[in-house]
């Protein structure tokens, strides 16, 4: 009898299992594929590895501006895939060590609920006082004719390419599509993005999304907004711009980046009576499902689908199941799009504040106010936007576009968590010279 069985060894699952293990609980984690889940194997980590190389490749091409003369570089995609595999391997060994150190038993196989206190792993039954479902998500497959064609990639197969494609058509202008767009663009592929909404980076603050679109278009990525993809035949994509006639375009590959969908099937959830739909498992702010002893965290709950949120949700669920008061707060969840330039955000967007009729004040400053930003870049631009309550000046949202913003957004998250006012935040000392000083400038301006 385990105190806890976790289904899924992605970030939400393995961190939760390790946390429970460190509390002295008897814990098992079930994984049907690789430790680390989507994030580590086919998501965040591979994507960032790829983007690191594409950035370096671009920087080499632009090195003359920094006073470095290099011969024309070329891109070795198989070498990049090998490096990615090496990085992933190192991190996976880290996960394995973490689970070993916290005495978590790893059950390899496909887990399935049998009742509210047992999990069957490839036919073998294991009992547990608590079950945490952290089964994650998989790439969504939209109902587009030909989406299953052999020239169509998804975010998993895109990491296995062996040659730089000449042209790529990306369906979806969300964070996955935009990160791949930046990568392929930088390694020399002609990139076109087809987005159904009138705006890219859905969920981002409008000013930031506008700026990102402007910068990416200026760089040479083509965007079709408010665009319907009608069908795919071989490597030809048929689409229709808003109000326009059907057109077609061909590309070496077509990348389906239309989002992700929770993995809720074949887990025995319905049979156990868990409140679940195609949009995910419904849980409360401690991660409880409607069925006692069954908990869920991460992508399978269908909320933000962010690895770091899954981690926190898993830990909150573990604390709650073992009587340690804890709860999720969703008003300071940072998110990053690792496009080039990268976008980092935390808290409310201006659109959300308007919709909620919250009175606010705002300040938008160029990243170039920070000396370090100018040092790091040649022609890139960026913005930092701060939103604060009109009456008391409590910081409600911080949105940034510009490289390195992902590394300082946590400071803004801490300010929001602490419900810090602009006046209080302006007492904080920012190291100089850092890009983070743009945040300080925005805070001072908003005051």
């Amino acid at each position, binding site marked *: 009898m385990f105190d806890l069985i976790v289904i899924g060894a992605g970030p939400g699952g393995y961190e939760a299992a390790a946390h429970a293990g460190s509390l002295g609980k008897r814990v098992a984690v079930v994984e049907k594929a690789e430790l680390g889940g989507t994030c580590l194997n086919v998501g965040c980590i591979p994507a960032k590895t790829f983007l690191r190389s594409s950035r370096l490749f671009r920087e080499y091409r632009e090195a003359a501006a920094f006073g470095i003369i290099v011969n024309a570089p070329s891109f070795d995609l198989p070498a990049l895939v090998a490096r990615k595999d090496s990085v992933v391997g190192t991190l996976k060994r880290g996960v394995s060590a973490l689970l070993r150190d916290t005495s978590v038993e790893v059950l390899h196989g496909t887990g399935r609920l049998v009742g509210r206190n047992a999990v069957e792993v490839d036919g073998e039954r294991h009992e547990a*006082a608590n079950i945490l479902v952290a089964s994650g998500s998989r790439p969504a497959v939209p109902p587009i004719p030909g989406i299953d064609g052999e020239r169509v990639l998804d975010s998993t197969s895109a990491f296995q390419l062996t040659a730089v494609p000449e042209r790529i058509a990306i369906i979806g202008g969300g964070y996955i599509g935009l990160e791949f767009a930046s990568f392929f663009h930088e390694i020399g592929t002609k990139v076109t993005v087809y987005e159904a909404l009138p705006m890219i980076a859905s969920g981002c603050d409008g000013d930031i999304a506008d700026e990102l679109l402007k910068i990416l278009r200026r760089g040479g990525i083509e965007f079709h907004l408010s665009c319907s993809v009608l069908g795919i035949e071989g490597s030809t994509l048929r689409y229709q711009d808003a109000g326009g006639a059907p057109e077609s375009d061909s590309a070496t590959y077509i990348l389906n980046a239309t989002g992700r969908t929770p993995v809720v099937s074949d887990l025995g959830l319905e049979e156990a009576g868990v409140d679940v739909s195609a949009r995910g498992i419904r849980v409360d702010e401690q991660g409880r499902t409607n069925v006692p002893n069954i908990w869920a965290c991460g992508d399978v709950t269908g909320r933000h689908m962010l690895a770091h949120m899954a981690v926190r949700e898993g830990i909150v669920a573990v604390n709650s*199941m073992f*009587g340690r008061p804890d709860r999720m707060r969703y008003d300071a969840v940072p998110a990053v799009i690792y496009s080039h330039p990268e976008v980092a955000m935390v808290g409310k967007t201006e659109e959300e504040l308007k919709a909620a009729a919250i009175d606010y004040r705002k300040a938008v400053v160029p990243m170039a106010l920070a000396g370090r930003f100018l040092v790091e870049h040649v022609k890139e631009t960026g913005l930092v936007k701060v939103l604060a309550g009109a009456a*008391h000046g*409590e910081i409600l949202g911080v949105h940034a576009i510009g490289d390195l913003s992902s590394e300082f957004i946590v400071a803004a998250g801490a300010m929001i968590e602490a419900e810090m006012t602009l006046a209080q935040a302006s007492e904080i000392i920012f190291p100089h010279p850092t890009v983070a000083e743009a945040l300080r400038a925005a805070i001072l301006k908003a005051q």
Partner: protein
Amino acid sequence: MATPVEMPKLGNTVEQCLLVAWHKRKGDAVCAGDILAEMETDKATFDLTAPSDGTVLEVFFDDGAMVPVFTNVCVIGEVGEAIEEYRPKTPVPSATAGTASISSSGNAPAAPAQPGTAGVAVSPAPDGGADLAMSTPRSNGAWFATQPATPPENIAVPVGRMSPRARRFADEHSFQPSRLPGSGPDGRILERDVRAQLASTQPVSRAARSLMDSGYEIRGAGTGVGGMIRTSDLVPPPVRFTGMRERIARRMEESLASTAQYTLHASADATGLLALRREIKASPGTPDITINDLVAFCAIQAVLEVPAVNAELIEGRLYQRAHVNLGFACDTARGLVVPVVHRSEELSVAELSGRMSALTTQAVEGTLGADDMVDATFTLSNLGGLGVESFTPVINPPQVAILGVDAITLRPVRKSDGGIDFVDVIGLSATFDHQVIDGAPGARFLNVVKEKIASVQSLCSI
């Protein structure tokens, strides 16, 4: 004869008291005035004394139990007397059970207060503490709680210096009060001291502090990092009724408290009403008489036919009123206003319509004279315009009846040939004071109203 001793009620708001410790045990001989046990409310401690000489025949609660007021706690009498009839009806909670019952109301599973033992923050259940904690989560969450595993080292306040009730509160909030003297006798720390300390030591964000300064109040525990109170944990202060709202509130409460109201629902054929209204709209030069005006006119005619509803009940005397002073409910920005058409039975439908229209305008503008709002003998309330299909109007005492007018809806009716026809009907909801008007007479009045409305075209000459 055996005498039960009950938990007294000390103070209007005290619903239960903590039985701190028995000074006498079962079988002890006592004299009148002897201290039986030490009790404690959230404000004070007191001694429970023996009302008569005798022997303690039975005690129904253990030390540390929460005892509802007016509940027997023990019985004193002569050895051998029966005591069962005095045993509290509901299952008697022992010290531990008493704690469990508190847990189930949403608080943490806390250790039973045990005088003489160290205050453990949260005691794990004997078997499977995790299960218990999970099934009764801390909804009042003190996020900065010490963990169940934490040993009860260095008790800040020695037992005895802190009342058990205060200790229980502190335990439930995993809070360790300071050693400062409390406000009880000899500096004893009472629950209110711990509450105050907890409130003053909870971290509060600057923005939340500003809101609190403007009167906002804390609702539950802080939900921020480390239990910090954030703006979302605050609620606005209660709003004081304005003069008019207060008057309405008082009148409505008096109405329901002083009468025996019941409501009958029926509906009348509205074909004539709608036809007449179309006719009025189609004839330029005629006054703009609304459906509501027409229904008011019909109601007045019905009241004249059933005068029992046109009466006032004042201090047990029924006053029959000669004139129909028709009050009608008006929705205004400041709340409900009821202007009165005096001697409404003397007006033609056009005159009635003109008068109601003028009074409505004045009500909305707030320019009604005092005379226009008094002496109503019967009231009309129309929510049909808002789509309401039936409701329970509240009588305006000392009146004895009120007629509510509902929306016009389509209803299928069986034709004589067996087929189905659709007819427009208007709903009627009449409330009567049963002290004066029984069900059948009320129903008869409602039938008269139905007849008048069904024959409105012949009743009203436009």
